């Protein structure tokens, strides 16, 4: 399990920032669409936007360790705008919620990593 501060902070930062970017991308979609369609399209658009920005974080902090929580966070965060129609006018609040999704994804990933980490001997 990761214990170096640089990477712990980097993973957390990547996940929260990339999830917020997912929210921002999904926010650009029209509000007139039915909610399920907006959620589905928003998720795809948000994840694509995350993938475009991700190389910067990959360069700084790693590969799969950045990608897995970031994509998980972005999957959730990009559905935020369509799930919160009453908050459509409050972008900063939506971005905070998106970043919160990223933070949750990072925390969940770290907790599961704590369980799975380590050597299993066979035969």
């Amino acid at each position, binding site marked *: 399990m*990761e214990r170096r501060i640089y*990477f712990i902070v980097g993973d957390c930062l990547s996940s929260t920032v990339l999830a917020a970017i997912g929210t921002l991308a999904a926010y650009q979609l029209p509000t007139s669409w039915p909610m399920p369609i907006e959620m589905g399209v928003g998720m795809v658009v948000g*994840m694509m936007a995350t*993938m475009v920005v991700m*190389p910067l*974080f*990959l*360069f*700084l*902090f*790693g*590969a*799969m*360790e*950045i*990608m*897995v929580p970031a*994509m*998980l966070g972005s*999957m959730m965060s990009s559905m935020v705008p369509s799930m919160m129609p009453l908050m459509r006018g409050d972008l900063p609040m939506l971005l905070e919620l998106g970043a919160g999704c990223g933070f949750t994804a990072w925390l969940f*990933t770290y907790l*599961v*990593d704590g369980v*799975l*980490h*380590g*050597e*299993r*001997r*066979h*035969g």
Partner: protein
Amino acid sequence: MVDNRTERRWDGTARFYDLLAFGAERRWKPAKQHLFARMQPGKKILFAALGTGLDIAFFPPNQEIIAIDISSRMLERAKPRVAVYPGQMEARQMDICDLDFPDGQFDQVFTSCTFCSVPDPMRGLESLYRVLKPGGELWMFEHTGSKVWPFNWVLDMCNPICRHIGPEMNRDTVANVRRAGFRIQSVNNLFLDVVKTIGAVKSD
């Protein structure tokens, strides 16, 4: 014979490879050093795939290593790193699925982020099995798919895009190693059950 399509793909990546791998190499330096510390002097070692040679810095000195890669441009970039390795090292362009070595040539085979990118992983692993001596060791640093929800779902979703850029995200490399005839000795999860080292032997 080299798979030209795969060669072209990695030739195209060679220029940016060090930049893309910079973070991951920094992160996994201790784990890779630990894995490569299993290289034993006096043994014949095959390393696949060399890429631009970033892993050479983690090799212990005084080993006898033949390193292969499918991409001539990657090998071109690896040249200066091969030249300064304090041991015996030779880099050759070769397809892991079509190894130009006799049977039972090597005591140890090492791979590093290789089997996410080999188009036909079973052929590649069977090829490694063939060139290993009976009782020979296979040591791998790989990323694979996950068996844990929701990570397996995320990796499955990303795979159609990622496979066009470079690696496959959801391969079951441990099962593939077993299917190729190896006996798995250890699996060490480094990040979730996604990034891991795998130790296996060729049965006598």
